[in-house]
């Protein structure tokens, strides 16, 4: 299992994990916020190219699971192996570099940098990773166009609708060619039609790139789009349902 993350690797171009390989293994993860227990020993595996929906009612721990699995949060107990890296043994800086290069994250409200234009928001992970600015800008524009957000390339987030901001957030998550994408209620702030379009966009991009997707949702119609559904209730996995 590799612990080393090279500082000077170019951004990944395509999938590099053979189909069937495991890209994420969560084992016995526990987490609590003071006295509120969010995860009570959760196991989860995700294969390369697989789309897994983590569903459950509000407060069941699904967002905590996404944060722990993606390295945004360190689990208080248990292990997380993300693309061959044991997250419990990486410091915050190395977890951040791993996320920037190999992982895309889409959160419910986009979480874009409000002072930056859409183009700069999307280029940001490339620039932080040392990419040449002109190339990063071009790639950002390509992804904005692919995500149907090229019309807001020069706008800052406060000037965008919720749907436009989410499209920009998806472009930012995919611009580095991630091997694994995490999405936390990506359609939660959108109307029905906008949500469907964004989900289709995300699924198509992930499947075309051969990446994996962990999709946290409380919406059955969103979960039904996945290859597999993992149901979480009160911090415990209650069922695995193969859908495809």
């Amino acid at each position, binding site marked *: 299992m590799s612990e080393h993350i090279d500082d000077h690797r170019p951004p990944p171009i395509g999938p590099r994990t053979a189909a069937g390989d495991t890209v994420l293994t969560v084992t016995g993860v526990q987490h609590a916020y003071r006295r509120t227990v969010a995860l009570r020993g959760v196991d989860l595996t995700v294969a390369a190219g697989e789309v897994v929906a983590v569903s459950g009612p509000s407060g069941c721990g699904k967002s905590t699971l996404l944060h722990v699995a993606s390295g945004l949060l360190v689990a208080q107990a248990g292990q997380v192996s993300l693309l061959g890296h044991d997250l419990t043994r990486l410091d915050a800086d190395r977890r951040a570099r791993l996320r920037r290069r190999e992982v895309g994250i889409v959160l419910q409200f986009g979480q874009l940098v409000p002072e930056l234009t859409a183009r700069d928001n999307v280029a940001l992970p490339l620039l932080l990773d040392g990419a040449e600015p002109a190339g990063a800008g071009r790639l950002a524009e390509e992804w904005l166009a692919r995500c149907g957000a090229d019309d807001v390339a020069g706008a800052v987030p406060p000037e965008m609708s919720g749907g436009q901001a989410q499209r920009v957030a998806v472009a930012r998550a995919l611009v580095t060619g991630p091997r694994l994408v995490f999405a936390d209620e990506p359609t939660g702030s959108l109307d029905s039609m906008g949500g469907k379009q964004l989900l289709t966009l995300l699924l198509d991009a992930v499947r075309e790139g051969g990446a994996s997707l962990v999709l946290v949702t409380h919406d*059955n119609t969103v*979960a039904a*789009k*996945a290859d597999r559904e993992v149901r979480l*209730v009160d911090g415990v996995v*209650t069922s695995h*349902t193969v*859908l495809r």
Partner: protein
Amino acid sequence: MCIVGVVSTSDVLLALLVGGPSHGYDLKRCHDTWFDQAKPLAFGQVYATLARLERDGLVAIAHTEAGSGPERTIYELTPGGRERVDAWIGTPAEPAPPGADELIRKTVAAIRLGLDPAGFVARQRAAHLRRMHALADVAPSDLMASLVREHAIAHLDADLRWLAAAAEQLSAGADDVARTATRAGLTPGSSS
């Protein structure tokens, strides 16, 4: 799987005749095209219904056609039949009565018999989700197919929400479930 539920065959046949006179065979084919995800109409049901509609003055025999096969009876709408179609479309459909669904019956029976109701609810959830996944995979061919699909998905979603609530209540009331089965004297092995 049948998506369109129980509909009144009389009303549907009358609606099909709005387009012009027709005979039973064509009406059946037209029905099966309009409602391609419903159970196909049986010929016997079509002819029996047309006879009843004629008796009630809602359709009339326009003429008969002799061909190579059996003679065909061509039916047309009467003014009364046309009024009935307008009234049918103009009246909201009766919402499905609660408690009659197979889903409810099986859950209630599983609770009363102590036959792992939570297991039934979990299996049903998986079946519903798979059905929803299959529907989501198929692009509707036109507006009507899209509406039928959305109706099916909305109903599956409603059931899935109910199943989630049922799972939660069964988990919270596991002792009550056990007592219900015992009181009913229907727990396996408790009968004399």
